[in-house]
């Protein structure tokens, strides 16, 4: 999911190319818990979120921290490397076969005023909205959340009020990875996947995040809606296979036209 990407970029100023890998891993873990241990896929996030959070914190502490001060290309390469490792790990453990989760929930639908709606889709959508609200509340109402935002806006100032900036960056990275895993787990309810899962989605996430403004959670929500609308219009006029192209086009257009994203642009307008 895009929120994690935005959070990590906002706080650590690095683009987490490994996001796709953790998304894919979230999907596999959900599938594996389901097929091997009959764990309900809806409950898998209860395991995935805390475990992925810890993995994220560990990864930040051991690897990412070393490259934070250096050129952007170094962190890009490092995280790209992590993605490749995760992908290959998935090939080794789960092979390249396409996997999908099948149970009665996945197939279920409801009729709403003549419309046939897929319950898993509604569920995933609701979870997306819920996690946005939860994240927003966390970031605005708790000391730790405020410290994360403060670190994102001005690291030195955060240090001056007594924020342990290193710890905050680790936590932000952990939350980002947990959100990616959670997103992957949710998406495994909707799509079948291979170790390559997440590549296109990550691109879309980029697009959404850039659209929204690289460090704004509300902006990310705007971005998602804007991209969904652009795609919906797009499919009417071009073949569905070209749909993913829209992300690229939007990405480029936004980067050129509104480098600060929607929210950033509004903000500068308001400030005059």
């Amino acid at each position, binding site marked *: 999911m895009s929120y994690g990407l935005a959070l990590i970029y906002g706080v650590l100023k690095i683009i987490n190319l490994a996001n796709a890998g953790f998304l894919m891993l979230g999907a596999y873990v959900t599938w594996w818990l389901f097929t091997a241990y009959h764990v309900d896929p809806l409950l898998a996030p209860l395991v995935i979120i805390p475990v992925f959070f810890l993995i994220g914190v560990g990864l930040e502490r051991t690897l990412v921290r070393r490259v934070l001060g250096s050129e952007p290309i170094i962190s890009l390469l490092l995280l790209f490397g992590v993605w490749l490792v995760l992908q290959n790990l998935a090939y080794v453990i789960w092979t390249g076969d396409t996997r999908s989760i099948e149970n009665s929930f996945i197939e279920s639908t409801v009729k709403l005023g003549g419309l046939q709606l897929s319950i898993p889709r509604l569920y995933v959508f609701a979870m997306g909205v819920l996690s946005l609200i939860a994240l927003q509340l966390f970031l*605005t109402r708790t*000391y730790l959340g*405020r*410290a994360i*935002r*403060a670190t994102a*806006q*001005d690291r*030195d*100032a*955060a*240090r*001056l*009020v*007594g*924020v*342990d900036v290193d710890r905050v960056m680790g936590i932000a990275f952990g939350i980002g990875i947990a959100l990616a895993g959670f997103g992957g787990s949710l998406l495994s309810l909707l799509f079948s996947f291979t170790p390559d899962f997440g590549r296109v989605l990550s691109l879309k996430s980029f697009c959404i995040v850039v659209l929204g403004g690289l460090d704004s959670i509300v902006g990310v929500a705007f971005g998602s809606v804007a991209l969904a609308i652009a795609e919906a219009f797009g499919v009417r006029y071009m073949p569905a296979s070209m749909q993913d192209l829209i992300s690229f086009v939007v990405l480029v257009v936004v980067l050129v036209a509104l480098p600060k994203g929607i929210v950033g642009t509004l*903000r500068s307008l*308001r*400030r005059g």
Partner: protein
Amino acid sequence: MLEVNALAVAYGDVQVLWDVSLRVEQGEIVTLLGANGAGKTTLLCAISRTVPVRGGTIVLSGERIDRAPSARVVELGIAHVPEGRRLWPDMSVEDNLLLGSYPRRARADVRGSLEYVFGLFPRVAERRAQIAGTLSGGEQQMVAIARGLMSKPSLLMLDEPSLGLAPIIVTELFETIRRINAAGTTVLLVEQNVLQALEIATRGYVVETGRVVSSGTRAELLASDEIKKAYLGL
């Protein structure tokens, strides 16, 4: 309460402070004077542990802090209000203030601290819901000082709080610093407004190119020919 001894600080290979020693006693207002680039900001940053210390010691109420993390220094009661205010421009005034009470010690009495700073700065109270970046320079400086006070410091370090403010606001500001001090907070004040700073100070130090070149009580400094020539234009 604060004792700096033979402090040396360098940015990479460039040494900025040599053998700096100073003392601040409970209840004082001590001012640091000196030309641009003398190293005043660097000295405050060394004390708040936001730049690395090369040599010497810093002792706060009996505890060595020259190797402590910055969070520890805040927890021990030093608040550093930095040059240029450094608010979080996209956050509300209230969020800026609440972050000021980030240290555990301060969280217990956030309400009391808010009341205190709103009493000192009624304008900040009026603007509490506004985004910090939209305030005027004077208002931002008030928020920056208020944020510092939210940690309930015993020592408040102010780095050129009057920079870029209109003269009438500056006078108001110095009066407020006096009130903060009268309420029991020790103050270490860096200023270019030498005359006004000396008016409220108990003692002062003059820093030149990284060294303390003279020091004394307010009266001594005001009477010194060097100060008169170099800073007061007399």
